[in-house]
Structure formats: C-alpha cells, structure tokens
C-alpha cells in the first residue's frame, strides 16, 4: 500500500473458505528480530489463513521491503503504518472482528495502535516485553555484546544513552536506531486499552512444558482483566526464535495461537 516514501510492502493471506472469521494484522519485531522470526510469522500466517482467518503482514517504514531506511524510522511513523493497515483491513468487504497480532516490540506497537483506533479490536500478543524501555535496553545491550571481548560495558551504555538524548542516532548489530524511534520505544508500555475492551491472547515462550506466563507478566495481565478485557494467557515450550542464530520454529506456539483464536472467535 502507499507510494513513494509511504510505500509499504504487505503480504495478504486470504481466508480459506471465503468469508473470514476474523481479520488479523501482524506487526513484526525490532531490527534483526524481524529477520529471525520471519519463518514463524509466515508459518503462523499460513496456518491462520488455512483455518479461515484473513491475515495481513506489513513491513514497517524502513523495514524489510518497505520504503525508507531503518535509520529514518520512528515509533510514531510505525504507529501510523499500523493504523493505515488496520484501515485497509477494515475496508475489506464483510464485517469481521479485527485482531492485532504483534511479536515482541510488535506487541507494544499493537497496543499503541489499539489505543489510537476509533473502534474496538482484539489483541494477540506474542512474547510481550515488559515495556518498550526493556526492548530499548536490550537493543543497546547488543552494542555492549559486540564489544564484550574488549573492556567495560558500563561506560559504553552511558555514552549511547547520552547520544540519544543529544539527538543522535545509535548503531548496534548493523541497525541504526534514530532518537525518534528510541524515545518512542522508551515510552511504549502495555497499559490496557480502555474503555473499549476486547479479547486479549497473551502467549509467551519458555520452559519445557505448558505453564502460566512469567510472574513478572502477571500484574500487567491482571490490569487488562480488570479493565474488562477477556484474557487468555499462557506460556508454551519453545525456543526464542526471534533471537536464535539458526532459524527455529515453535510448533507449540503455532498450535496454541490457532487454538486461542479459534476459541476466542467461536465463543
């Protein structure tokens, strides 16, 4: 969709069987995590389409095959991209519930977009981070990790933060994050969208058997429940595929996602 600097590459998966049970927008994670999680996103999108869901995957500004440089991206710009993609889905013929599906920073973006949407929506969050600040810290730590063999990390982190505050971009692991993106990310949280409530599927990966989400996530999850959202939260075994050097898949997550959406949409 779009043209020139506003051009965004999208993959549209039509729902098997014609009329979709729901329309799902996928928002990818930050920088290299997007590349490493490509396969899982594709597998899930196809599985969802096969199960009767319409899925739209969008490459955000400066990412993948979309226009622009990553260094020019901003959180505000990405939110606008997400909202534009929502409008495109909502304009498709026939009413169907809208789901925003995000992985890691994409989950934060999904929540950001949900706050700004003029209508209610549902959320499918994969490995929601504690906050955008946590994601930014992890990104900056990549720079520390690169220089781990040589010397101290503390001074470098301070330097990177000072650079951002002074309006300069920072580079880590081949990606340049602009101050606009960094500050937007720093401020992003998983505060519940109110008053319009919907359904929330919160899925985390880790451990060797199905369990409840991590204890740190519980207060956040409770806040959504208290806000009137219908929450399904679980942790499934599987590798952190957005971070592993080799491409990994998490079949348990694919299955849990299909099940969660099936249950939520059929309820």
């Amino acid at each position, binding site marked *: 969709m779009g043209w020139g600097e506003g051009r965004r590459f999208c993959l549209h998966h039509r729902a098997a069987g014609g009329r979709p049970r729901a329309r799902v927008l996928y928002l990818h994670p930050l920088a*290299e*995590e997007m590349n*490493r999680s490509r396969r899982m996103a594709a597998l899930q999108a196809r599985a969802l389409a096969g199960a009767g869901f319409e899925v739209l995957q969008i490459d955000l500004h400066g990412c993948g095959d979309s226009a622009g440089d990553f260094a020019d991206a901003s959180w505000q710009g990405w939110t606008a991209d997400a909202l534009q993609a929502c409008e495109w889905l909502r304009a498709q013929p026939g009413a169907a519930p809208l789901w925003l599906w995000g992985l890691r920073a994409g989950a934060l973006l999904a929540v950001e977009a949900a706050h700004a949407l003029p209508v209610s929506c549902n959320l499918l969050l994969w490995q929601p981070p504690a906050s955008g600040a946590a994601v930014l810290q*992890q990104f900056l*730590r*990549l720079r*520390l*990790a*690169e220089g*781990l*063999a*040589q010397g*101290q*990390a*503390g*001074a*470098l*982190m*301070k330097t990177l933060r000072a650079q951002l505050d002074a309006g300069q971009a920072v580079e*880590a*692991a081949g990606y340049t994050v602009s101050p606009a993106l960094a500050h937007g990310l720093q401020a992003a949280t998983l505060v519940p969208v109110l008053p319009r409530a919907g359904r929330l599927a919160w899925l985390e990966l*880790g*451990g*060797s058997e199905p369990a409840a989400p*991590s204890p*740190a996530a519980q207060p956040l999850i409770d806040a959504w429940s208290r806000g009137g959202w219908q929450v399904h939260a679980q942790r499934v075994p599987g*590798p*952190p595929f957005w*971070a*592993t*050097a*080799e491409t*990994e898949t998490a079949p348990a997550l694919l299955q849990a996602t299909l099940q969660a959406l099936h249950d939520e949409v059929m309820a």
Partner: protein
Amino acid sequence: MDTQQEVLALLDELLGLGGRTAEFTRDTPLLGALPELDSMGVVALLGGLEERFGLVLADDEIEGATFATVGTLTDFVAARLAA
C-alpha cells in the same frame, strides 16, 4: 538442580542448542567458541539470567570474562545468588 545444571539448561533453551549442553563441562568455552552465542545470543542470555535467577544486571557488571566458559558463567551466577 545445581547452579551449573540450571545455567546449562538456560543456555540450551535460549540458544537452541538441542541438548548439546549435556556434553558441556566447566571448561567448555562459550564466548567466541559457540557460534550460537552471537550478540543477540548474549543479550538473550543476559535477559534469561535475569529472569531465571531473579538477578538485575547493571551495565558495568557485564564483562567478556564472565562468558568465557561454562565455569566462569556458573561462578558469576552463584556469586550473585549468594550475595
């Protein structure tokens, strides 16, 4: 599970080692020797250590020497847990 076993389990899970950590000993080299431990692997490991062991790692605590071997990493975790 002792600390070394927990650390190995974490490495296996986070780096996608597929059970290879069963062969690891204290002397098994990590940083610079394990291809799966690239910069994203290091960051995933830092986060995993924090979450699994309830630690908060300050930026100036993060040193290459800590990740040199299974033994140096285990000792680092054990020392923080004892503190």
